[in-house]
């Protein structure tokens, strides 16, 4: 009984994660700029994959009574390194002179560069 409930919760987690991945891909297609695209890909994709990993973790825990600590470690690792990677790419893109979109109103880093 409790196994079935946890399994249904894990399925809900997996579906939310898959929908967040689709939202990330739509943002990556439709947004006009490198920086806004990295905003979409760095946050939404990371959160979607974390949701899916936690869903798979709950699924194995509920059905096989098998605790898989590697999935929790992978969730922690993605949560740490996903935004760092996005930040590094955007920093190097700004310093190598990538243009932003025309509707940008201010650029605070212009003097520092």
């Amino acid at each position, binding site marked *: 009984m409790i196994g079935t409930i946890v399994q249904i919760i894990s399925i809900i987690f997996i579906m939310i994660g898959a929908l967040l991945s689709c939202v990330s891909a739509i943002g990556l297609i439709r947004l006009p700029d490198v920086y806004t695209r990295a905003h979409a890909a760095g946050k939404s994709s990371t959160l979607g994959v974390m949701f*899916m990993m936690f869903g*798979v973790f709950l699924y*194995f825990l509920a059905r096989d009574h098998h605790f898989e600590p590697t999935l929790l470690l992978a969730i922690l*690792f993605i949560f740490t390194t996903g935004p760092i990677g996005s930040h590094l790419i955007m920093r190097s893109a700004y310093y190598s002179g990538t243009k932003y979109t025309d509707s940008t109103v201010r650029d605070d880093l212009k003097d520092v560069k």
Partner: protein
Amino acid sequence: MDMDIIIIIALILVSFAMLGILYRVIKGPTLADRVVGLDALGISLMAMIALFSVLLNTKYFISIIMLLAVLAFLGTTAFAKFMQKGEIVEYDRNNRTDH
């Protein structure tokens, strides 16, 4: 058995997301677009491996996810450093920073 249908639906959604990211990797106007797309592609691939390990009813694929996470982060960091400085491992003993 009905859980398999939902796992397959999630797999189809993730593969559509990977197609969208692949469009950005191919078409992307600048180099940073392609690097962002490849990073997101690696992360989606990790999700796909997790879903396949549920679908194939095995737990031996889980360590591949951790391996892919480390490799994707290393590749992204190396490429960001290459884009900014022109070299990845620098032999500069005086620790000059000129970009």
